[in-house]
């Protein structure tokens, strides 16, 4: 029983593991030796890993510095967006007035504002990165949460009405739970955006301990292995943040019918 279950799991993972192994082989030998990709385009995997190991403490210090900025932006942007969505859903005329602009703002490349927030808050202040990350997170969370809050079936509302429910009770018991799957979809998008915001914000200037600044200066000094190792750190932190959000989703929206396909 368990043995077959284990081998089934192994079979599920096998294709992904093979792709991973092939990627490493390609990176280490195929690209440099067969395709003759130059070191400044992509250094060998082993070279990146050894640099990563040698410079690990400064890399992780930089990663942690930037991660805190990203996390700050994520929390700030997502919480204000959630509260904003509640307000817009509660006062519908206001929502109708604001929503088109929110949708439009969702479509513009907000990252283009990164030099502006640097100018507003100062290059070295963490707030310049926190704010650009927060603004990046804000619109997708606002639009999705609002959609979730307003996608309640009319019968659900009629039922609550028949219990003489107040607006606050309808929000607490129906609208907010209905919106949660939408919210988590947006949070997963937002956590990726928050890392992008913090790192790209650094590219336009920031503290020398920041990850984005280190990537940029390493490239400028032709220390490509260090740049790639720093990108690896950014990826690890981004995946960790995404994984935490996905885990929170499983815990909070575990009731959702979409979890049923995982049961046998």
């Amino acid at each position, binding site marked *: 029983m368990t043995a077959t279950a284990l081998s089934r799991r192994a079979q599920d993972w096998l294709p992904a593991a093979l792709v991973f192994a092939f990627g490493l082989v390609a990176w280490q030998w195929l690209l440099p030796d067969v395709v003759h990709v130059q070191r400044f385009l992509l250094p060998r995997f082993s070279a990146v890993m050894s640099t990563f190991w040698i410079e690990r403490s400064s890399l992780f210090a930089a990663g942690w510095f930037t991660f805190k900025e990203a996390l700050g932006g994520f929390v700030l942007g997502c919480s204000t967006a959630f509260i904003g969505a509640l307000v817009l859903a509660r006062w519908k005329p206001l929502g109708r007035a604001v929503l088109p602009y929110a949708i439009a703002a969702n479509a513009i490349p907000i990252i283009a504002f990164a030099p502006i927030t640097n100018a507003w808050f100062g290059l070295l202040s963490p707030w310049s990165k926190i704010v650009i990350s927060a603004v990046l997170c804000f619109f997708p969370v606002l639009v999705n949460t609002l959609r979730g809050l307003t996608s309640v079936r009319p019968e659900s509302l009629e*039922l609550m009405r*028949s219990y*003489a429910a107040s607006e606050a009770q309808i929000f607490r018991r129906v609208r907010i739970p209905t919106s949660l799957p939408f919210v988590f979809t947006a949070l997963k998008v937002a956590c990726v955006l928050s890392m992008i915001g913090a790192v790209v914000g650094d590219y336009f200037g920031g503290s020398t301990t920041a990850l984005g600044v280190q990537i940029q200066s390493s490239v400028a000094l032709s220390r490509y292995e260090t740049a790639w190792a720093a990108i690896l750190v950014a990826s690890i932190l981004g995946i960790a943040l995404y994984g935490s959000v996905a885990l929170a989703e499983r815990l909070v929206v575990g009731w959702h019918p979409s979890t049923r396909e995982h049961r046998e």
Partner: protein
Amino acid sequence: MSDSVVSISGLSKTFAKADITALDDISLEIGQREFVSLIGPSGCGKSTLLRAVGDIVEPTAGSVEVNGKPARRARLDGDYGIVFQAPVLYDWRTVAKNIALPLEMLGWDRARRVARVKEMVELVDLAGFEDHHPWQLSGGMQQRVSIARAFSFSPALLLMDEPFGALDEMTRERLNLELLRLWLETESTVIFVTHSISEAVFLSTRVVVMSARPGRVSAIVPIDLPQPRMAATREEARFFELVTEVREALHAGGADLA
């Protein structure tokens, strides 16, 4: 009539935007512990009538009184339980919590809620499924949860809009019997919308036949089958006579429609 639970007089409803007169001058008295079915062609205003009684739609003219109070007051007092055609259950709540929802809204304390939920779960034969989520249940079981929820707080009046419309014949007949048992045990009054003549006759103390465009009451057929009704009731000669009577009333009402 002082002993009527529902008193509808001169009720009309026009949907201005669509320019549809859904209900035209409906008057109806429903007494304590009656089981009244509304039957009529699709679009004749059965759901609208039910919604007007439940103060979900605002009538254009006329009035609805429930327990001697205007419909709005009765709604605010929690006098209704509603069951829709599709079970309106909340996915994030378990069966037990779905049934407890109106009790929470009425401010019952935990111990009382738990005791009542246990009672209701047994009444609708769902013991063992308390901790399941709605999407883990079959359609018939889901509808039983909605029915348990509607009965849970012993409302004076039950409004049911084709609650068994989406179910297969066998499940439907079983739930018919369960519903009658609940009705007899809880001393409630029921208004029940259905498309099925035999279901209307089997369940009701009176069948109200409606005609379409505009929606009017075209006939009222009292059902004198003895209580309690059982599966065998469906095989009695009197049952067939009443089915025929309702069918003819339905056709007479719809004849001028063509």
